[in-house]
């Protein structure tokens, strides 16, 4: 049995970038997302593609814990780190949110994080677990119109981080709070007002590649950071 990093949200720009960086550094990855074909072809584009595995799970509709537990058993993998990049972003005024929209946003951003962490904190898995990294958003600490429900969901990850760092110690739990990064998902919003957004961020709008570097540091070099929100936003929140 080999050690693996479980990476959710591998169809996203940031997920792909982190996966690419970690595979270059020789880690074995479990790539997770909803679309099997897309994950397979992405996996083939990575270094050591034959060692990576694919866990297909729709966080909105499936029983996440059951699905992951049977995957771990069938594939005989040891999960050493859980990196939760998977997320669902909807920008609209609060008045337009229906119950299903709210449920979906919390299910994909937060409940999935809780369910996977819950499974991995069972005795038989926890002894191998070293890192949990959540992905939050700067909107959870800086208000903006249209982001309320997404921000509320992302803000929950901060509380989860602080408490799991205590409950699951010595597992390191870190919450990366990301600012404006140009991705497939955010480009329509960012490009709609590029100059204005860019000029309000000291180091400008970020690229997904920034994140992989830092995740790699957390996994390989960091031994004394846990229970923290780490803001990576090009200085945007310093203003």
């Amino acid at each position, binding site marked *: 049995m080999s050690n693996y990093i479980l990476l959710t949200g591998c169809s996203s720009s940031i997920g792909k970038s982190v996966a690419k960086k970690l595979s270059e550094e020789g880690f074995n990855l479990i790539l997770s997302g909803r679309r099997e074909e897309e994950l397979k072809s992405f996996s083939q584009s990575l270094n050591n593609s034959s060692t990576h595995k694919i866990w297909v799970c729709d966080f909105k509709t499936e029983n996440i814990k059951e699905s992951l537990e049977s995957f771990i058993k069938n594939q005989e993998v040891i999960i050493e780190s859980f990196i939760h990049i998977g997320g669902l972003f909807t920008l*609209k005024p609060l008045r337009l949110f229906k119950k299903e929209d709210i449920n979906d946003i919390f299910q994909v951003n937060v409940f999935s994080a809780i369910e996977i962490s819950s499974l991995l904190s069972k005795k038989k898995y926890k002894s191998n677990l070293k890192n949990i990294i959540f992905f939050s958003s700067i909107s959870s600490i800086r208000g903006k119109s*249209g982001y309320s429900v997404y921000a509320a969901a992302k803000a929950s990850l901060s509380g989860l981080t602080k408490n799991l760092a205590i409950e699951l110690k010595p597992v390191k739990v870190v919450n990366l709070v990301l600012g404006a990064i140009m991705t497939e998902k955010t480009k*329509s919003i960012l490009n*709609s007002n590029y100059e204005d957004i860019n000029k309000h961020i000291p180091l400008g709008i970020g690229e997904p590649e920034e994140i992989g570097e830092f995740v790699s540091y957390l996994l390989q070099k960091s031994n004394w950071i846990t229970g923290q929100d780490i803001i990576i936003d090009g200085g945007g929140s310093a203003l």
Partner: protein
Amino acid sequence: MEEFLEKISEILEVESVNLSDNLEDFDEWDSLTSLSLIAMIDSDYNISVTNDDIREFKTIEDVCNFVKIS
């Protein structure tokens, strides 16, 4: 087309919209509503709209023509 108009009505918080309606005449037409329109057109129709495009839109028909579903 009907579905698209329904989505626009929802964003503008009105019962229905007509092609000839001016965007500026809607009480709810503001920067957040225009951002919602951008997000909706991107996620549901996979078309990128910029703020400059939005500024060019005068009527509901202009929006439909841009999304090419008139």
